[in-house]
């Protein structure tokens, strides 16, 4: 299929977001197609995080439209995007430090015991949630996490990031969005996350990946959205442009 005949999973047009006098996004278009990895690159403050927050209900844009599978949608809250299968790893990771790994994984979608214990007494199925959390972590290939009952505040930054990625990968059914998911990770763990992204793509699930790591981006991305000063400076592919050219567009040294 060619790009013109494929229908985007998520399509954004003219997204605008201002913070007081600061213009975060100034009319950004973005399409994500089925089974692709779309990377977003850009300097610090270019609006990458703001953009994905507007796509996932974490921020409500001031203007612009969103379409999911061709149908107009508007996400007022993060839950709205989750409800349609969009899972996000935010740059802040969005984890509750005082709660344990399994509780964090299932926060907002807790599993209750079967039968009246669950339906009447609302009893949580802690065992099931811990097992599923471990399965999700192991699915990613992370070996340093043994106890799903461990509090998140006792984990290292990289471990937290791995948990956040595992959570998104486990629950995403429409689109997975990752805001700098490897920023705190070691070489091996970064590799695991890249593998996980490929696995998601192979399942047909599109992934939006924000990263400052250009070799990663050029290795994995099907298309690269370049964000600059709150606008989209162009969309390239790893074959149409090399890294140096991409970075030149990103920094404004060249234009598309």
């Amino acid at each position, binding site marked *: 299929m060619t790009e013109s005949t494929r229908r985007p999973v998520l399509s954004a047009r003219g997204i605008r977001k201002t913070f007081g006098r600061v213009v975060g996004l100034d009319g950004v278009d973005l399409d994500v197609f089925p089974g692709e990895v779309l990377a977003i690159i850009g300097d610090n403050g270019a609006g990458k995080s703001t953009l994905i927050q507007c796509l996932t209900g*974490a921020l409500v844009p001031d203007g612009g439209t969103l379409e999911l599978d061709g149908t107009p949608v508007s996400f007022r*809250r*993060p*839950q709205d995007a*989750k409800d349609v299968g969009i899972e*996000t790893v*935010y740059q*802040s*990771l*969005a*984890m*509750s*430090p*005082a*709660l344990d790994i399994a*509780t*964090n994984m299932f*926060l*907002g*979608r*807790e599993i*209750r015991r079967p039968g009246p214990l669950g339906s009447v007494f*609302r*009893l*949580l199925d802690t065992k099931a949630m811990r097992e599923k959390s471990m399965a999700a972590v192991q699915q990613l290939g992370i070996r340093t996490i043994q106890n799903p009952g*461990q*509090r998140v*505040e*006792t*984990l*290292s930054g990289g471990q937290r990031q791995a948990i956040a990625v595992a959570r998104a990968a486990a629950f995403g059914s429409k689109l997975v969005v990752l805001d700098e998911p490897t920023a705190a990770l070691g070489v091996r763990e970064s590799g695991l996350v890249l593998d996980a992204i490929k696995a998601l793509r192979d399942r047909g699930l599109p992934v939006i990946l924000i990263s400052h790591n250009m070799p990663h981006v050029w290795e994995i991305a099907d298309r690269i959205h370049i964000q600059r000063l709150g606008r989209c400076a162009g969309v390239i592919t790893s074959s149409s442009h090399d890294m140096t050219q991409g970075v030149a567009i990103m920094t404004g040294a060249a234009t598309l």
Partner: protein
Amino acid sequence: MSATETSTKGPAATGRGASPALRAQHVLHEHPWVSPLVLLVLSIVVFTSLNPDFAQPRAISLLLQQTAVIAALGVGQTLIIITGGIDLSVGAAAILACMSSALLSSQHGVPAPAAILIGVLIGALCGLVNGALVSRINLPPFIVTLGTLSIFTAITLMLTGGSTVQGSKMPGAMTAAGTRVPLFGLDLNVGIIVVAVLYLAVGYALGFTAWGRRVFAVGDAPEAARLAGISVSRVRLSVYIVAGVIYGIAAWVLIGRAGAASPNGVVDANLASITAVVIGGTSLFGGRGGVIGTVLGALIVQSFAIGLTLVGLDDEYRVLAVGVLVIAAVAADQWIRKVRS
């Protein structure tokens, strides 16, 4: 603390190689009720060695009777403090509920069960007002409840003119919480049992239901909870309403305990309930704690009152001791929270 000290925290701090202080810190962090339990046991041991009467059923029964109302109010206070809030209107709300149901049953012929239920609903309404202002308009809980403290108190005075309703003027069920229940050789009453059930119910809800997990999540990291798809304002609102319901129940326990409904029934409820929560190991910063600590905290304060009286010291010493304890508890909380990297 220095950066090197912080960096040694984390999983390594729990390992075998960790120093005793670090391990203690970790245990207290996992189980905030451990320190108040140790303190309560210590105070019982010390007071009993000073005066053996302290361990007698009579003194223990008195301890439980005197603790019940503050312990009940402390449950609501705990929930609110876990969300990172505070409730200065706790006493005022309980008294408003208490006086409303007393007046309805004594002067307006409302049957006791209905009057008690209305009292509980009035408590819930007070919670709704606090919760709506905190969660919808995003006003700071301290300011909101400072305001409603005055408002609820004023409404109570308008309703009652400041006068007490004697127990004899009310139907029997209004004061039934004071009915004696001999149990385990102790002289308990219905109110104590109701408060115990309240603790079980709220302890269960906090520890074993999704609602409880969300209450902690909202207090610990509200933005993370929001991004996880939780409606932070709905959780906050629910907590204030549940707390209000608990105050309404505590109001009935209070009438039974006092054998009357007085507008000055629990003048020290605000500070006493916050004191119990804080000594109980619940963090004023939110996200950490629980109701077990609160009942222990309330018992500690009351055991000091009884113990110091038995030893022959004046009440000033209790007040002094409580002040020291509160500061020590908050200092301990700061230390425990450093486990976080």
